[in-house]
């Protein structure tokens, strides 16, 4: 049915950023994402008055997915953040806050967009080339001979999501589980081209977090009724498995587009069932121990198989098919006729396990890279948040394998970068001015806007009204409690910087983060001893953060470049 109405003309608005409405909605979004950021971030509760579950979260993925955005400029921003999260899982709030800050700061300056965009791009390339360079002091190469750095990375990700509701002990437990699950997916004899396996997260809600576990192989959930029918498993050191992707329910598969003329008294169902029994006989004669089917197995065939001591499990679903075929080494069988013996696979052991109130059928493989992460949490919302966090952590570990570096977390990377950029543009502005054809003042203004965007990003880690300081040697992030009497000599107070790399034992001079300071060259070239000494660091995924930085600056440039908005109101 085509539309009968003629299309309404669109609404065209020029300068979408200058209006009061735009500023207000940008500020609202910024306040929202800033308050969620970091381990001390506040939680948001999303609920729809018309129904659906209530989501309690502080993660950008869940937050932005449920948040309706009406302003077109914000649509661009949130879409960029969501796409970033879909790619890297981590760093969504970082990207969102930085982008909001940049747009706001630059908007306040009122410079020509051309200059702003050119210089922002230049500053970005300054940042990325520094972060990628060898003498970057906020990047740590990952030492795969110990688990320390990887564990710190996972811990940092877990602690930055307060909506998971974990206590310190649980954080330790879950982070070791995640790391174990990840290590199980790495093939043992790796060639130059590593294909990682998969960790399947199995939900178990309403249990204690401590009950979570990692198991090699696959867990297939079975109901109690099904369980009754499965016979006690005989002891053996290997089980032969057949995996079907066609339905074994005995229905007639597609018979073509023509018509079938069936004579009276001819029962096609019986014919199909006969065919199934033939198949069953073949399976039995091939000494198959376990029959798995993606779809449904006909009850008669099930009965037949049971009488021949073959275990049959059906309705597995398409999502488990690929891991199953990998674990067992089978080809999914798509034929009801003769089966080639080469399509059978095997597992090392089978058992029935009970976790909480659920029964699982556990397939233990000989040697594969598939494992199951049995994840427990007290309630649904917390479980959802924990699951998302685990996926983020696993993804971050995968990215770290690809690019074996981590960045210092806890705001230290940001403050360090700020110090570096300030110093660089103050001391070597000639190249920029020559290449980009802009004045010294413009460069100073934009640099200040860029740096204060990064600083305010770091500052949003502090939610309890504390003060933020930065030292003038490393350019790291130090947080002190609020409401201290001014008489106290506060530089003595912070014990460790945001990432935990440096302690206040050293002779350092501090200043307030957003105060006017003289630019100083931050110490580059991270020493190996420094990273080795500290045992618990706060770390960020390198790839995700780098890409987040790029996406934030690019999106901000895009938004600042808008001259008008055409809204289609149909």
């Amino acid at each position, binding site marked *: 049915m085509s539309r009968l109405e003629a299309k309404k003309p669109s609404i065209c608005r020029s300068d979408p950023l200058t209006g009061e409405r735009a500023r207000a909605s940008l500020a609202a979004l910024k306040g929202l994402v800033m308050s969620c950021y970091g381990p001390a971030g506040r939680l948001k509760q999303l609920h729809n008055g018309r129904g659906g579950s209530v989501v309690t979260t502080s993660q950008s993925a869940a937050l932005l997915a449920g948040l309706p955005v009406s302003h077109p400029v914000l649509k661009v921003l949130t879409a960029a953040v969501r796409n970033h999260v879909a*790619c890297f899982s981590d760093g969504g709030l970082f990207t969102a806050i930085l982008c909001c800050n940049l747009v706001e700061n630059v908007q306040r300056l009122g410079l020509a967009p051309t200059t702003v965009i050119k210089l922002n791009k230049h500053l970005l390339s300054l940042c990325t080339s520094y972060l990628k360079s060898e003498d970057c002091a906020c990047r740590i190469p990952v030492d795969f001979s110990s688990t320390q750095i990887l564990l710190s990375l996972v811990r940092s990700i877990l602690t930055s999501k307060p909506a998971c509701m974990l206590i310190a002990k649980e954080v330790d437990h879950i982070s070791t589980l995640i790391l174990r699950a990840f290590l199980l997916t790495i093939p043992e004899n790796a060639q130059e081209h590593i294909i990682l396996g998969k960790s399947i997260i199995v939900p178990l809600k309403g249990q204690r977090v401590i009950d979570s576990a990692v198991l090699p192989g696959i867990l297939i959930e079975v109901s109690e009724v099904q369980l009754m029918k499965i016979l006690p498993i005989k002891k053996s050191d290997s089980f032969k498995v057949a995996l079907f992707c066609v339905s074994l329910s005995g229905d007639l598969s597609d018979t073509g587009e023509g*018509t079938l003329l069936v*004579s009276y008294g001819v029962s096609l169902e019986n014919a199909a069932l006969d065919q199934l029994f033939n198949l069953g006989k073949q399976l039995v004669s091939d000494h198959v121990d376990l029959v798995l089917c993606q779809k449904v197995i006909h009850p008669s065939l099930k009965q037949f198989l049971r009488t021949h001591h073959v275990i049959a499990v059906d309705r597995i679903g398409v999502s488990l098919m690929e891991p199953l075929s990998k674990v067992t080494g089978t080809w999914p069988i798509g034929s009801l006729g003769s089966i*080639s013996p080469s399509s059978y696979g095997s597992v090392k052991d089978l058992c029935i396990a009970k976790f909480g109130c659920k029964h699982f059928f556990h397939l233990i493989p000989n040697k594969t890279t598939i494992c199951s992460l049995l994840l427990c949490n007290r309630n649904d919302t917390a479980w959802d948040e924990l699951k998302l966090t685990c996926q983020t952590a696993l993804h971050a570990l995968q990215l770290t394998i690809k690019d074996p570096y981590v960045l210092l977390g806890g705001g230290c990377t940001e403050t360090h970068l700020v110090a570096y950029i300030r110093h660089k543009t103050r001391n070597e502005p000639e190249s920029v001015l020559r290449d980009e054809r802009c004045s010294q003042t413009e460069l100073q203004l934009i640099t200040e806007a860029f740096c204060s965007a990064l600083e305010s990003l770091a500052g949003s880690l502090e939610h309890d009204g504390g003060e933020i300081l930065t030292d003038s040697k490393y350019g790291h992030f130090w947080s002190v409690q609020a409401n201290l009497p001014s008489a106290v000599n506060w530089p003595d107070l912070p014990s460790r910087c945001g990432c935990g790399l440096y302690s206040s034992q050293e002779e350092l001079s501090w200043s307030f983060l957003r105060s006017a300071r003289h630019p100083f060259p931050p110490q580059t070239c991270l020493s190996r001893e420094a990273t080795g000494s500290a045992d618990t660091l706060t770390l960020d995924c390198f790839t995700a953060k780098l890409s987040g930085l790029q996406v934030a600056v690019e999106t901000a440039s895009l938004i600042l470049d*808008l001259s*008008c908005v055409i809204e289609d109101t149909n």
Partner: protein
Amino acid sequence: MAAAGSVTVALHVAEVLETIVSGCLGPEGRQVLCTKPTGEVLLSRDGGCLLKALHLEHPVARVMVACVSSHLRKTGDGAKTFIIFLCHLLRGLREITDKEKDSFLFENIQTCGRHWKNCCRWKFISQAFLTFQTQILDYVMDHYLSRHFLSIFSSCTKERTLCRSSLEMLLGAYFCGRVGRNNHSLMSQLMCDYVFKCTACESRFEEVLELVDDCFVELKVGVTGLPVSDSRIIAGLVLQRDFSVYCPADGDIRIVIVTETIQPLFSISGSEFPLNSEAQFQTSQFWITERTKAIVKHLQNQNVKLLLSTVKQPDLVIYCAGLNGISVVECLSSEELSLIQRVIGLAPFVLPEASSQYELSHTALAKFCKPLILRSKRFVHLGLMSTCSFAPHCIALCAPVQGLVEQHENALHGAFKMLRQAFKDLDLNCVTQTSDQSCTSGPCIYKNSRESNELPKIVNSSIQRSYQDTVVKNKGELAKTQTNLKVCSNLIVPSVKLEQNVLCSTPKVAVTDSYQTDETLRCSSPNKGRIMDDHEPFIESNSANSKPENTRREISYENLQVAKLARKDSILPLRYKSLETCTSQSYYSSSIPAGCVLPVGGNFEILLHYYLLNYAKKCQQSEQTMVSRIIANAILGVPKILYKSKKGNYSFPQVYVRALQALQTNQPMISNQTGLESVAGKYQLLTSVLQCLTNILTVDLVISIKRQPQEVYDQDSEEEL
């Protein structure tokens, strides 16, 4: 609606559109955000896109949008310039009509009698524009502008080869107007690399451009969530779906394409399959299974490793293929299939009627075939061995948001269209007439200056020569000149041209007529004797023509050769030194050669402006002068906007004055911008705008119909039935 208002109304509309569009023009242009009713956002700097997104209701605006989109379909570029130019033209028209309400076009008053109407006046103006577009524009392009053209091809050899640096400049200038300003250089670099990587054989790049333009949708992969700088070129073909079965294989991979299911069906549509017993059902199923297995086995025996299917294959086929080590990709779209067929020249595999003794003739080879993971999505990555001039490559376009990916896709697609146009020879139509005009206007002016009486002799001698020509030849030309005559008479061109055309066709008439010409010329001899420089080259050319005792055919043959040489001669800059002599003889086809470019930054506009004004000064008829002036002034609107933000030495008046000085002293124009634009594109834009303008001007009444458009559609379909 009164016709008098139509220019004013059209101007209002065009001005509104201009304000939207001019913000996106040129390297300083900004982006526009379009939201769709579905909630998606699209970023765009593409004029055509914006105009469509506006969903305009005004009838005049809709005419304009329709004209723009038809222009875009042809050339892929220039929508914004279109609107701006149109707006300036309308502005110029209104100024003139405001100033001199009825002082011009006295002939029109005569033709229309005492009570001429506005619509009549507009009709004449629009006709004047049409005359300009079909005759004067081509003449000016050919005679004056062409000496400034540069060529994009690098060498002067017969084979046209692409010059990388000039291609980069051309693309750079294009992307400056189409994508966000921090991505210009990246995109043009990407596209340039792409063109060179895809071109297997240097001289056949045109085929490559054609193929890429046709199949662009299949040759790009959009990836959201990554920074734009991660965009890259992928060697081989990427199909936007996953393998149904993937069996790793080394070495060269044989490919087979199927367009139907390999498993035989129980019954085909329109037929009946009687089942009489259960055993029959089972045997037929058994037969189907066995047959499928046999076919797949046969494919394996022929060493086929990859099966590309346009339809979904049953589970059984997938299973058998997997067992036999054949990878399967299902559900290829017809566009993908046609692309693959164009690249490897492979016809679909026809299922053998009899079993297996069947040699596979339709196979092709691929270097590799593997899954490709982009942003955790899996794609099929094929390294096809191309049998044509196109070496398959794909572009992965990355951007933070989908809207930006789409913008880049559109810009790239438009760029391929633009390149295709730029590398085509563009025939300047009606050049024969215009060159005749040049002949006549030459003597015309010459005579006016009252310097000598040689001219009639020359004219006479040429008449005599043409008298000596064979009659056969004249007959051949007769048809053409008659059409010319028709055109000329329609357009109310003064008699001089008419007669000159006749002069070519039949000598007898020509002799008598030419006397008349002389007389008319004498009668109408204007008092200005200003064009003093022009007679020297004219005498030269004419004497050159009359000197040898050649027949005219030979001369024109020579001219053809000259033209050909000039076309092949692609040294930068490409000049038409011999143009004067060429065009003084009548029949040869003139064209803008393929790959003609000019530097960006309003060079074309200023050049055309300058020569049109010059032409207007020389021109006798008031309409033509007026039209040329209007167009010459209107065309400056585009560079004015381009230079709006520049200050000091780079401001528009400065640039303009410098360019004019350079032109007057015959020095090369210096452009401070690096970048080139295609002349053909500019020329086509100009003609499209003029056609649009005549469209708007000739309408005298807009009838609004309140009926549902659906009904009209229904009526149409009934008629078809």
